[in-house]
């Protein structure tokens, strides 16, 4: 069960920006900067962060869709950051991707059945005569009717398109599935359908799932372990229960308190931790802790020196000078859950 499937160590993705002024040095965008985590077989790791946190770039780097500047991405013992050509193509069978946008991720000129069949054909999986039966099976597994195979993507709703995306990703029977905001482009009422489907398929098939989202509540629903990213770095990593019971990093605490909830309502809003400003840009980030400029409890040392990601207590990793053992420097506002007066 707790066999490690994916190990990411010190993963960095830097982009050089095009110079507008030739006299200035090239600006370096540190989209992902030294990210490390591990994912066990059959478990779900949720990566949560705001825009610009680098969470999507992490996913794309693992899939080799963007060049890796340095660091390692291992599936069991194979470092896929170094693979090229045919070896890389063979490796792709083991990890698949579900895209955020159900509209642009399906080729508009190809029928749904052929889209799901493509991975089987391209990677030459199974006998050609059995592939159609496999496609039928996949359609049923994701809740589509097999006769819908002959339809074109534009004839499906957003939720159904995301099901096609999931069926395509499951076709080569991957061991690792990476979902990048799979529901954020969908209507609220459709999200639950897709989340339930993903969770069920993940459990039934024992797939490792890297679930990327900006939505804390969705991550809480999906993940076994949570990693919070801020400006290209992981600032906190913890098992789900421990994290949502008490987050340690000031950013995690603030992010959690910013989410409006049905039960919390106005009381929650009134007690919210207020972060000022927008996240600074990953171009030339501040020298010390990257969250220091917005952190309500930052001290001088936070601005001077970048904290390391360290194990604050068993299984809980935090990148903050001020966390000591498992005491959070920034206290979460008292829970505004249902047990308080209504």
């Amino acid at each position, binding site marked *: 069960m707790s066999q490690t499937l994916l190990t990411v160590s010190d993963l960095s993705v830097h982009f050089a920006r095009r110079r507008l002024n030739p006299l200035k040095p090239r600006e370096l965008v540190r989209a992902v900067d030294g990210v490390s985590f591990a994912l066990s077989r059959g478990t779900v790791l949720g990566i949560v962060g*705001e*825009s610009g946190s680098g969470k999507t770039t992490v996913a794309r780097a693992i899939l080799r869709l963007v060049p890796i500047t340095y660091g390692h991405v291992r599936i069991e013992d194979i470092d896929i950051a170094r693979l090229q050509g045919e070896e890389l193509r063979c490796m792709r069978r083991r990890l698949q991707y579900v895209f955020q946008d159900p509209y642009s991720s399906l080729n508009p000129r190809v029928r749904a059945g052929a889209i799901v069949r493509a991975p089987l054909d391209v990677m030459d999986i199974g006998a050609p005569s059995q592939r159609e039966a496999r496609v039928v099976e996949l359609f049923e597994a994701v809740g589509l009717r097999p006769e819908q195979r002959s339809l074109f993507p534009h004839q499906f*709703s957003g*939720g159904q398109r995301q099901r096609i995306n999931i069926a395509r990703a499951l076709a080569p029977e991957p061991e690792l599935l990476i979902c990048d905001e799979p529901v954020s482009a969908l*209507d*609220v*009422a*459709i*999200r*639950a*359908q897709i*989340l*339930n489907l993903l*969770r*069920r398929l993940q459990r039934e098939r024992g797939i490792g799932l890297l679930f990327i989202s*900006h939505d*804390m*509540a*969705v991550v*809480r*629903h999906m993940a076994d372990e949570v990693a919070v990213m801020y400006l290209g770095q992981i600032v906190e990593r913890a098992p*789900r*229960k421990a994290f*949502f*019971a008490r987050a340690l990093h000031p950013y995690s605490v*603030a*992010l*959690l308190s*910013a*989410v*409006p*909830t*049905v*039960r*919390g*309502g*106005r009381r*929650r*809003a009134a007690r*919210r931790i*207020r*972060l*000022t*400003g*927008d*996240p600074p840009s990953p171009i030339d980030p501040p020298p010390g802790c990257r969250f220091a400029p917005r952190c309500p409890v930052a001290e001088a040392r936070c601005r001077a020196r970048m904290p390391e990601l360290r194990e604050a207590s068993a299984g809980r990793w935090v990148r903050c000078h001020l966390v000591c053992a498992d005491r959070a420097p920034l206290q979460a506002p008292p*829970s*505004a*859950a*249902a047990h308080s007066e*209504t």
Partner: protein
Amino acid sequence: MTTERPPLLQIDGLSVDFEGGGRRARVLNGVSLKVGAGETLGIVGESGCGKSMTAVAILRLIPSPPGRIAAGRILFGGEDLTRVSDARIRDVRGHRIAMIFQEPMTSLNPVLTVGDQIGEVLIRHLRLGPKAARERSLRLLEAVGIPAPEQRIDVYPHQLSGGMRQRVMIAAAIACEPSLLIADEPTTALDVTVQAQIFDLLRELQSKTGMGLILITHDMGAIAEMADRVAVMYAGRIVEEGATQSILDAPQHPYTRGLVACVPDLDAADGDAEAPLAEIAGVVPSVWELRSGCPFADRCPEVIDVCRHEMPQRTSVTPAHHVACWCRGGPAA
């Protein structure tokens, strides 16, 4: 919450038709709403339910053709906005009723500086001179929490972050001190920490100026945080309407209950996080394919025979809580 004073805005039985290709679709069907001064009305529903159409109809911005207001009244400041002249409605827009949109990048003019965008409104509606307009713009930028407004006033929208652009939009919207602000998914494109800032700002402005606010969103959490009253829309109709607390604590319409239950909640007990989410099966029907009967019938877990043939009337659960459902209504439910 709303007292006996006449409401700021009152919509009665508003219906909007779209025609195209020889077919006609009723995109809004008998919508009745009211908003009081200083009050926040939330409108929720999935996309395609008519939330934005309602907002656009209030300002008479429905593209025509193919759209047309088929029936109903929109009473604002003693006038019926469906009947006033084009010149009059232009004066109301942006001056007495302002609107902000989901995507601040596309709703700001990319070739005008921030100061010009806000100044334009002031010059047009309040007949201020350029100098006074700039002075006032600076104060507005300050009021919406833009740091260093003297520098920001001369930048172009693309030089600002999403949150800053939305603040500029709000500054332009409140420039003429409107008595009603319509915010259509104002924070959907923004991060949660920035959303919290925008909500704070809207609340603060509202308490200062006493303007009414219509907040259109799909997020029940945002409704819980912002709205005094909620209207739940489905397929162009209001299916449930009432005080926020009452609706969130005891949703009556199966659609409302679905909307509340299908979103994972951070405040739920930890055990609940493991259980599958409640689902609303199917998708919103296209307005071109609506048949008689309740439009939600095909997706409704509690559907009975009559739902498929006849549209339920609006009934009162409490004097301030109304629902249109055959299985609900009446104090007994």
